[in-house]
């Protein structure tokens, strides 16, 4: 619990696939069990992130935190475990 980190990624006003590319780059630098918070106002990028994250095996969920603004939470899972 001590070492877990929370990273924040602002993807407001960016069309897909930019949010997902940013997230994938950030995730590469993160350690397993770290959390990534993404904020986006692009509805469709949620679908893309869900499918891609599932395929990578990370854990994720999202909520609508404002009008037309979503936060996506990703917990990195170490692929070598």
């Amino acid at each position, binding site marked *: 619990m001590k070492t877990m980190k929370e990273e924040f990624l602002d993807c407001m006003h960016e069309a897909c696939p930019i949010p997902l590319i940013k997230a994938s780059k950030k995730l590469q630098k993160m350690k397993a069990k770290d*959390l990534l918070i993404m904020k986006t106002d692009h509805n469709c990028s949620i*679908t893309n992130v869900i499918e891609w994250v599932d395929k990578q095996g990370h854990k994720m969920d999202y*909520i609508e935190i404002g009008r037309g603004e979503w936060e996506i939470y990703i*917990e990195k899972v170490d692929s070598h475990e």
Partner: protein
Amino acid sequence: MTSERIEALKKRRQEEMKAIKTRDQSPYGWTLLIIVLGIVSVLFINQSHYMWVFPLGILLGFTLERSRFCFTASIRNPLTLGTTKLLQAVILALMVSTVFFFILQVLTLDIGNFLISEVPGTLRPIGWNTVIGGSLFGVGMVIAGGCASGTLVRVGEGFTLQMVVLMAFIAGALLAGVFHYSFWYDSFIEGREAIYLPNIIGFIPALLLQLTVLGLLYAGARKFAKRKNI
């Protein structure tokens, strides 16, 4: 898939958001609904067939928005991300519309004695113009982040970036599609016949052939997603 820590984070963020007051937007929704009903009743009085088309279009847009469907992503994602769920959905939609257009065309056409211009749906001759136009459109939609329906849906959602796209889109459509349409038609379409498969191999074989090709594409897309990992 979620995890305990994500659930905890969600709860925390939701608590934090409760403190921030957001304005109720439902009056806008009700106002729009009343305007829509007004337009529909005007169309009804004038006995226009747009009475059906207009609400149908709104329902279609609603479905596109809620399902987060995106034609651009369906074509782009296999190459950029190696995911094909949307592509599979598009292929399935094409299969469904193949079957229903088949039924519609068989029911409306006098089989064995009809003109291609009488076939429901828009049939145009294919050629290199199709390939070049399609490629241009494809490059454009990936850069702009949306095709026609996707741009409209996202402008409706309030995604500001795509309002610029919409303006360019309208300018392009007016320029090529309205003002210069006869030039494009005369240079590339005029004088060639559209290919209508049922005229060549018959109605049932054409249906089966199209469904088989789409089925193979669907299977290929699934296999591609499993193999490709970016």
